């Protein structure tokens, strides 16, 4: 078994150069749009300019008359009879009877150049009958709201709710009334967050090729190529194994690249164009209008607290819209809502609601940031009212290892206490604040995930090692896998090369999502290395003529296990590799499983802001992320995840939102007006890596990618409240909204 204490580790915990670094800084790395092939055609997509409209007629004759236009596809080119999620995916790929949101694809064209494809797309005439629309979640539940899709609700929805409510969730424990009765104060408020996009720098891009025989290839920018394979073949009615999908390098995903958007269109166009490969590259405007942002939320939270800060009861009612399809992460949001607290009585109610917006995709800890905003804002409000230290209150009510969580299952070993203690000890908390400045504190949680995982590993003739994994590298995971493989095999980091391989090369892998890659692929990599060690020990045993059990692996070589095993010089991995043709053939290790033992991760953030009282502009002065990583394999990448999560959360808190006009058209589909933070908006984000090892991973890893986006939303709002005395319960806290609230508080 691998060495499992920090001081015995040689590679885990160090900061080697990333294997993909040179390719990325020299521009050699090949991203989605960098692919080309002989006979390449370019695709363009015709999108609905209406939020909700019946498609009366599509006439592509003018486009098809252009020389160089090779194919046009509409929904008529897709198979019928799909149900459930497969139908949702197909409907989102290409509108059927109705366009359901501004940007919904209604036709696609392939031509010999990208310009020609765009020109041809403009010549495809679509006749629409505009229908009433709704984009706001609360408005979509109102009795007079237009019905987006009749019969879309599942069995969970009680009678009498609007047909736009498609899923209903309710759970809890304890005696709520008794809990509130024990409290000294009970407070209840409504909180709202707006849809935010993942904002990855690389727009979606793919090249698909499919012949009349139903065999196809795809090159695509994705977090999970088996998901691409499964979803594309479902939507097109093909056999999964006939499509081979190769992932490109990826310029960011954050959950948004775990599903399909225009990918099946490239295959459908290719099939219709005689099997010529078709490349489709989205523009930023297409990315914002037609790929998945996360849901917008409207949330009621009620909490009871004693004068000394004990939380006695809580309830959360969350309403979320995730576009014109079921799937807003209201369930996850509710599970996360009170996860950081041990509360005797809790009630959770959730509504998943349809609206005329793009289909929501996963975005970093789906649901958790909204939930944290509502609950952590209210906890802060109550701490302020009672004059309590918000960190002390979180310590007092902290969830504990091996105890039942707020959402049902028992926690494993969790590091919330340690995280809060490290926060309390940090020097940022004692920096004095000036006028118009305020400090905000909030915690956050993510479950993390295991998922289908398949890894293989092969020994080279010179003793170097190739690791084949199926989880695209979105956050430095090639380095982490190489480090874990090298640590386990006890060979140098540079002697391991990690490749992300295509769908034909491994068993099914889930995407790089749920903060699972370093945990699950890492665990499988360690297991694969262990199986290769077993084989290498066997080869040495055969050579020495002793039992395999009498051989042990250390320092990158097979050794006799002890004096009783005999006196033999160690056989290095290089010697074993060089001899393997004559000792039984190629040596490889592999592992397939759904790794158990996922470790949850808690984090606490502290932010200092300054608000300009004359303009309402909020400046982030100082920002601290403290989070449990279990164990950081490559600490620089863990810090990067913490900082990245904080930055995305700050953007969501202050400026990012989907702005719709009264026709339901997205008003800000460019980065000029969809305002993600720029570097000069931010201080260096301070980080503290807390390490409470996860017993479910050989090196103690917990996923770290997602927790960090949850606390910033409430932490920033809490800091703004401390700086101004104004409580902002509807994100984003734009200068315009904040100035107006400051003025109102002065007049009131």
């Amino acid at each position: 078994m691998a060495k499992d204490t920090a001081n015995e580790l040689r590679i885990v915990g160090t900061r080697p150069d990333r294997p993909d670094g040179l390719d990325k800084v020299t521009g050699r790395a090949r991203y989605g749009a960098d692919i080309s092939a002989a006979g390449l055609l370019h695709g363009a997509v015709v999108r609905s300019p209406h939020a909700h409209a019946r498609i009366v007629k599509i006439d592509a004759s003018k486009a098809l008359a252009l020389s160089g236009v090779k194919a046009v596809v509409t929904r008529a080119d897709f198979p019928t009879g799909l149900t459930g999620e497969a139908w949702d995916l197909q409907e989102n790929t290409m509108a059927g009877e109705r366009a359901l949101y501004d940007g919904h694809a209604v036709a696609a064209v392939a031509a010999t150049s990208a310009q020609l494809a765009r020109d041809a797309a403009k010549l495809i005439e679509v006749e629409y009958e505009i229908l009433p629309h709704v984009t706001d979640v609360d408005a979509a539940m109102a009795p007079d709201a237009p019905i987006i899709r009749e019969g879309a609700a599942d069995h969970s929805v009680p009678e009498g709710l609007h047909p736009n409510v498609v899923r209903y969730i309710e759970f809890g424990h304890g005696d709520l009334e008794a809990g509130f009765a024990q409290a000294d104060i009970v407070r209840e408020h409504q909180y709202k967050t707006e849809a935010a996009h993942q904002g990855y720098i690389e727009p979606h891009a793919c090249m698909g090729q499919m012949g009349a025989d139903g065999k196809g290839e795809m090159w695509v920018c994705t977090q999970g190529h088996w998901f691409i394979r499964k979803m594309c073949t479902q939507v097109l009615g093909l056999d999964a194994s006939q499509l081979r999908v190769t992932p490109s390098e990826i310029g960011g995903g954050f959950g948004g690249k775990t599903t399909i958007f225009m990918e099946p269109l490239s295959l459908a166009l290719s099939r219709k164009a005689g099997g010529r490969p078709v490349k489709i590259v989205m523009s930023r405007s297409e990315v914002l209008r037609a790929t998945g942002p996360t849901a917008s939320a409207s949330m009621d939270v009620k909490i009871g607290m004693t004068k000394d800060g004990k939380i006695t009861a809580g309830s959360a009612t969350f309403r979320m819209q995730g576009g014109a399809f079921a799937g807003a992460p209201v369930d996850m949001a509710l599970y996360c809502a009170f996860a950081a607290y041990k509360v005797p009585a809790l009630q959770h109610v959730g509504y998943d609601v349809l609206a005329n917006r793009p289909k929501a995709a996963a975005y970093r800890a789906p649901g958790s940031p909204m939930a944290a905003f509502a609950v952590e804002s209210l906890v802060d409000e109550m701490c302020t009212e009672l004059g309590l230290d918000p960190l002390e209150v979180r310590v007092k009510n902290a969830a504990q290892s091996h105890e039942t969580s707020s959402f049902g299952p028992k926690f494993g070993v969790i590091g919330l206490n340690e995280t809060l203690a490290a926060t309390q000890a940090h020097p940022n908390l004692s920096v004095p604040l000036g006028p118009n400045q305020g400090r905000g504190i909030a915690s956050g949680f993510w479950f993390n995930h295991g998922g289908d995982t398949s890894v293989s590993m092969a020994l080279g003739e010179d003793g170097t090692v190739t690791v084949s994994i199926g989880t695209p590298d979105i956050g430095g995971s090639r380095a982490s896998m190489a480090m874990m493989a090298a640590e386990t095999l006890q060979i140098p980091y540079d002697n391991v090369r990690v490749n992300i391989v295509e769908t034909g090369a491994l068993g099914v892998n889930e995407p790089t999502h749920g903060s699972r890659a370093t945990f699950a692929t890492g665990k499988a990599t360690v297991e694969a290395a262990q199986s290769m060690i077993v084989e290498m020990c066997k080869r040495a045993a055969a050579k020495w003529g002793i039992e395999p059990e009498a051989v042990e692996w250390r320092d990158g070589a097979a050794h006799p296990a002890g004096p009783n095993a005999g006196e033999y010089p160690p056989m290095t991995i290089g010697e074993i590799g060089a001899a393997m043709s004559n000792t039984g053939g190629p040596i490889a290790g592999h592992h397939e499983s759904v790794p158990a033992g996922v470790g949850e991760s808690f984090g606490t953030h502290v932010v200092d802001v300054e608000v300009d009282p004359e303009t309402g502009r909020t400046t982030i002065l100082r920002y601290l992320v403290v989070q449990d990583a279990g164990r950081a394999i490559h600490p620089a990448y863990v810090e990067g995840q913490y900082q990245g999560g904080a930055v995305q959360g700050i953007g969501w808190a202050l400026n990012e939102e989907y702005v719709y006009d009264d026709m339901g058209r997205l008003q800000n589909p460019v980065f000029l007006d969809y305002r993600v933070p720029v570097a000069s908006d931010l201080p260096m984000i301070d980080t503290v890596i807390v390490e409470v090892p996860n017993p479910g991973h050989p090196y103690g890893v917990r996923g770290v990618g997602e927790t960090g986006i949850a606390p910033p939303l409430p932490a920033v709002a809490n800091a703004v409240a401390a700086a101004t005395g104004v409580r902002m319960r509807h994100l984003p806290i734009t200068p315009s909204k904040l100035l107006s609230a400051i003025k109102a508080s002065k007049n009131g």
Partner: protein
Amino acid sequence: MKYHCPKTFADAAQIAADATGVIRYLAGGTDVLVQMRAGMVTPDDMIDLKHIPGVKEIVQNADGSWTIGVAVAGAELGAHAGFCADYPGIVEGLELVGSTQVQGRATLTGNLCNGSPAADSVPAMIAAGAVAHVVGPNGARDVAVADIPVGPGKTSLTKGELISAFTIPARGAQGGDAYLRFTPRTEMDIAVVGCAVNLTLDGDRVASARVAMGAVAPTVIVMDQAADAIIGTTLDPQALDTMATIVSGAVKPISDKRGTAEFRTDIAGVLAKRAAKIAYDRAKGTK
């Protein structure tokens, strides 16, 4: 699309006058190329001005005034110590346009002729009293920069007319200017409100002033009454408040995705006060 590379402004004007389709001039290209990529415009004739002698020159004339060529980029203007000392407000306006990379190309001319009411370099040019030299098929004329924009995306230049250079008046003693804009982000953003103030002093008192506001009306607007409120004062808090009230009362902003009319109105007065203080300090030589 036809690409032209004239060697004189007269030739450029003739090409433009003879063209029958959509014309675009290429100086820095930071608007035109972006618009072409976004599919917003597909020019039939693209007239590149960069090869006309003098377009990259920054010249101080004998009377102390400045002549700026049409292809002088933000990075070049920002590196010119003499001009920066005289008109830091114009320089800071132009330098707010785009990223470092864009600064290597972006020009005053392009920023003006693109016609955006939110153009960052235009208010300070107008506050400074800059004049555009215009060449056309019927000869040359001088036009106040304030009279070039007539609405979003529209200028007063007629077919075949183009700007050949700007002249900015001599700074003189005890003068200063400043430009401030409000944006939700620190960079890579578009002005929700912009404000330039240009003034001269007589001792501690404001002798002359011009206040120009961006993004609060279809064009950049000059506010003489606001300037009058500070002329003759030492820029005391009361004078500043009076000016701010006049500014907020005179702006005619719209509500859009970048800000509400109410917010723009509030911010306009705040920015005017702040810009006036900076211009005053610069005129005093204290900053």
